């Protein structure tokens, strides 16, 4: 038996692991070689807080394009997906709503003060090293105040430079071609500049026509097939990073830009076939620069500074000269965000640490919409946190204070009142037996999301009297892990959590006098009871290694807004009672095969759980096969073939937005 490939694969995995971890605590910072410590992390971690992680090879082999596609494999997560590569994709964790998920890119939150959600479809996995999702918050206390400020957090970690032995640079070029006229060339260049500094440049172009067939059919009734129109996307991503090590510290800086043009295919409703076609288009130009510095200042004190400036420009056009059915809209929106955060950590003894974080953020939104009020917002977030580590018992508590002040730059218009609020969280874990890697854990967290600029100020719709929308989470759970040296099953990690969540003062759109005029109100009250389970295991069958990952979610999310309503207690829209996923990855020499399966159970498209709103379960099977380490002409080649939705299931995630059927991708990459 040739063990070399397995060793290589393991080495790659370890490399991947070490790069993703961020030095959370001083005990990590104290290590001269931080990386050695990072290697020890397992994938479903024995974290105090429920966390799920996809990284390295596991992430690479999933036949997915964007972060949104990867996040679907986590338990407790529902993705709202409007279909195709260009369709909006947002994540909803434990039914709290997509506004309650903080999305962090390389440690700093991606903001969207205008509508409060991040389109995960725009973040390609090409340069992504790890995607991790925390319920509550990351169970670390050496972090900015913003990391405490959302009900769940999704961390996207871009690749950090690393080099084969004796090499000072690395160039990787890839080309993907796929169904729906998809072309996706990419480039990664990494170089070591001196002993302690390296840089990386990553760029990618993606073009797709978004034209895919979809079918709607009824038993003993119609069976109609059409092609999705106006779903084309052309996007360009480029990022450049600098990474530096210092004595007892590190720093990094990043520039990121994303530019795209896309069409909106619109809701697929009954129309005369081929008669009209949506022609509305959107252009996005986003960029940000951010920098992080972590430094240990003495035996017991560490500091962290984060800074960011982001600029987002959006231009939307709907032109009746192109599509006779439409109303004329031609609007631009320009958002800017400035962010600065300072964190101090005090850890005088091994078993106790405390931290203080202060963040300031400035958001401004401009638009040429009719009657636009030009809002800007100052936010100050302050967090105090403490952690106790008594080996078998770990405790963490944090208190976040949020202050916001809005200013309106249109004469005569009124701004929303200031906010000043405290929100707490408490986290505990207990390992009952020394000999068994079994951990029990619990957390409580109460946090809110602020009304967005759109909620407050959108012309005709906004309501400045909105209050923040609160979530309260109670979670108990257990993790178990074991490893074996010589059996077929080498490694197993289990986690099981049960939770009860409440969403109060939920901000929802309500009609006023007619279809033209809606408004936002604090009307909703939702109670969610759920179970998340995940299993991660490693198997070894002779020359074949298998990684098997299973997840299952049960959710009962009841809309308990109005006890008088006929639909009181109905399951909230798009939340299935049962959902789950399977990822099986096989390694055999230079060959790797990945099978993934996603199941979303029956659900309803509206809170009225009646046959008209019923939505069937959907499930997709994806397969990928790759061959790597092919050395030709001094270049290391890797080739991957993917087939997605191989049973060609016709399904919708969002009502009237059909998803693609079977589709293929071929990816070739070369590394020097």
């Amino acid at each position: 038996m040739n063990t070399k490939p397995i060793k290589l694969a393991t080495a790659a995995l370890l490399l991947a692991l070490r790069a993703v971890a961020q030095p959370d605590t001083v005990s990590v910072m104290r290590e001269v070689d931080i990386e050695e410590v990072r290697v020890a992390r397992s994938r479903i971690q024995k974290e105090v807080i429920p966390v799920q992680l996809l990284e390295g090879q596991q992430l690479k082999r999933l036949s997915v394009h964007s972060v949104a596609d990867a996040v679907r494999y986590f338990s407790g997560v529902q993705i709202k997906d409007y279909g195709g590569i260009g369709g909006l994709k947002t994540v909803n964790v434990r039914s709290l709503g997509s506004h309650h998920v903080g999305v962090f890119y390389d440690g700093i939150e991606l903001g969207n003060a205008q509508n409060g959600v991040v389109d995960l479809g725009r973040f390609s996995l090409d340069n992504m090293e790890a995607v991790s999702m925390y319920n509550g918050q990351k169970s670390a206390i050496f972090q900015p105040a913003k990391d405490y400020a959302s009900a769940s957090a999704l961390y996207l970690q871009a690749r950090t430079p690393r080099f084969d032995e004796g090499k000072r640079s690395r160039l990787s070029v890839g080309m993907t071609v796929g169904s729906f006229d998809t072309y996706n060339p990419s480039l990664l260049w990494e170089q070591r500049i001196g002993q302690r500094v390296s840089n990386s440049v990553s760029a990618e172009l993606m073009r797709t026509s978004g034209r895919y067939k979809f079918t709607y059919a009824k038993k003993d009734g119609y069976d109609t097939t059409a092609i999705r129109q106006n779903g084309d996307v052309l996007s360009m991503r480029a990022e450049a990073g600098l990474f530096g090590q210092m004595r007892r510290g590190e720093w990094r800086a990043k520039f990121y830009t994303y530019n795209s043009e896309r069409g909106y295919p619109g809701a697929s409703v009954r129309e005369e076939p081929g008669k009209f076609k949506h022609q509305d288009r959107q252009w996005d130009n986003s960029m940000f620069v951010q920098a992080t510095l972590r430094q240990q200042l003495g035996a017991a004190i560490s500091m962290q500074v984060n800074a960011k400036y982001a600029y987002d420009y959006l231009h939307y056009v709907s032109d009746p000269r192109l599509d006779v059915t439409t109303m004329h809209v031609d609007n631009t929106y320009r958002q800017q965000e400035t962010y600065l955060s300072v964190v101090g950590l005090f850890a005088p003894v091994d078993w106790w640490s405390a931290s203080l974080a202060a963040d300031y953020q400035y958001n401004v939104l401009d638009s040429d919409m009719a009657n636009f009020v030009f809002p800007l917002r100052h936010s100050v977030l302050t967090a105090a946190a403490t952690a106790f580590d008594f080996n078998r018992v770990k405790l963490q508590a944090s208190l976040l204070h949020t202050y916001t002040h809005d200013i309106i730059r249109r004469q005569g218009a009124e701004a929303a009142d200031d906010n000043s609020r405290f929100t707490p969280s408490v986290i505990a874990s207990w390992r009952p037996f020394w000999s068994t890697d079994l951990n029990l854990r619990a957390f409580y967290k109460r946090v809110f999301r602020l009304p967005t600029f759109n909620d407050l100020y959108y012309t005709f719709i906004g309501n400045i009297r909105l209050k923040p929308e609160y979530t309260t989470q109670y979670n108990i759970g257990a993790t178990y892990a074991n490893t074996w040296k010589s059996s077929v099953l080498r490694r197993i990690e289990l986690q099981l959590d049960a939770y009860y969540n409440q969403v109060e003062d939920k901000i929802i759109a309500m009609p006023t006098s007619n279809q033209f005029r809606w408004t936002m109100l604090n009307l909703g009250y939702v109670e969610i009871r759920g179970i998340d389970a995940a299993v991660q295991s490693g198997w070894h069958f002779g020359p074949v290694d298998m990684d098997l990952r299973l997840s299952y979610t049960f959710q009962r999310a009841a809309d308990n807004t109005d006890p008088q309503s006929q639909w009181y207690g109905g399951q909230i829209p798009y939340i299935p009672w049962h959902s789950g996923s399977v990822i099986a990855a096989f390694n055999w020499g230079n060959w790797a095969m990945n099978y993934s399966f996603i199941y979303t159970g029956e659900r309803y498209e509206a809170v009225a759980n009646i046959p008209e709103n019923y939505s069937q379960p959907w499930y997709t099977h994806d397969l990928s096969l790759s061959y790597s380490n092919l050395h030709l002409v001094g270049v290391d080649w890797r080739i991957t073939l993917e087939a997605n939705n191989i049973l060609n299931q016709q399904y919708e995630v969002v009502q009237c937005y059909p998803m693609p059927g079977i589709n293929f991708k071929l990816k070739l990459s070369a590394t020097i």
Partner: protein
Amino acid sequence: MMYRVLCVMVVLLLLVGCRKPEEIVPEQIIQIEEPMSEEELVATEYLGFYLLNEGNMGSNKSTLDYMDLTTGKYHRNIFAERNPHVARELGDVGNDIGIYGSKLYAVINCSHFVEVMDAMTATHIGVVSIPNCRYLCFHGGYAYITSYAGPVQIDPNARPGYVAKVDTATLQVVDTCVVGYQPDEIVRVGNKLYVANSGGYRGATMENENSEQASQRYDHTVSVIDIATFKEIKRIDVAINLHRLEVDADSAFIYVSSRGDYYDIPSRTIIIDPHVDQCVGEVLSKDGGPLACTNMTRHGDSIYLYSTEWSWYGERNTITYGIINTQEQRLVSRMFITDGSETSIEVPYGLAVHPENGSIYVTDAKNYVTPGKLHKYSPDGKHLWEITTGDIPAHFVFLKKRGK
């Protein structure tokens, strides 16, 4: 080894591979009131009424309900099951409904056509393609349908609407007539058509200006079309953002509703004299201010109306009801629901009065994304029953016996 794993996976795939085909959502029939007696059945001219549910935009959930007054049964969501081969059911946003001859016409706004059905069975006959179609009326073998999608000018914001003239025998558009911005309701008086121009798109989207100018962007006219030549012969200056039109029993006056600008300019109810094609008066509320009107329907000399106006102070709709006497041309009552049960209606949306017996029907659109309610009241305004409808129950048409 790889082979064995593959085999297991193939078996797994086959196990979970097939899912059951989508079923057509069946019609639901509910006995809601007593059937008619033999005598009533002979005496009445009306068999029942259709209720068109709009469905929220972009959800393709417009549905059709039928109240069979002869049997006392309510048939919910009849179109899908009766037309299993019509792809994607009724369509997106049912905006108006009418019966002419033996045919039932449903204007499906965001599906951009008028669905034409058999009036007795609601089975599909054909469609008339009209982009962004809104409301309809009939006369002399033709259907007249308003549309927002007129010819595009150089300035895309200054795009007028039009009225399509459709031959009800061939279901072909035979002529069009350009009218004002975003035309809504249309009525016929004598040999003229009257169209309420709203300008809703212009009011909502044009460039940043101050509020006073904003209200000027709405249309404020009623277009008058001569039926013989099918040409617009006049624009009557009325008030901004017009919506509803109701003709009195003698075809002597037309009542027009203005939506206002949702900011400072209130909703109003104005009277046009079609003999001179001019505004001749305005119906005022009891305090002497303008009478807000969101929807109205005439029965004899009474126009029943309601209004929903948003109030920031209570953060809720202020809902008012009323009856206009068309002989006196004034508001004579602030209630047609007399037992206090109107408080159970969240958002009144559809309104109809039985032409013979004066029974009043009011729909409640609730939060627009869940099924609404249909309420029936006796002619003296006492609540009789309520029933769950489709999403946003809105538009009524009464079905007469054949040959009547």
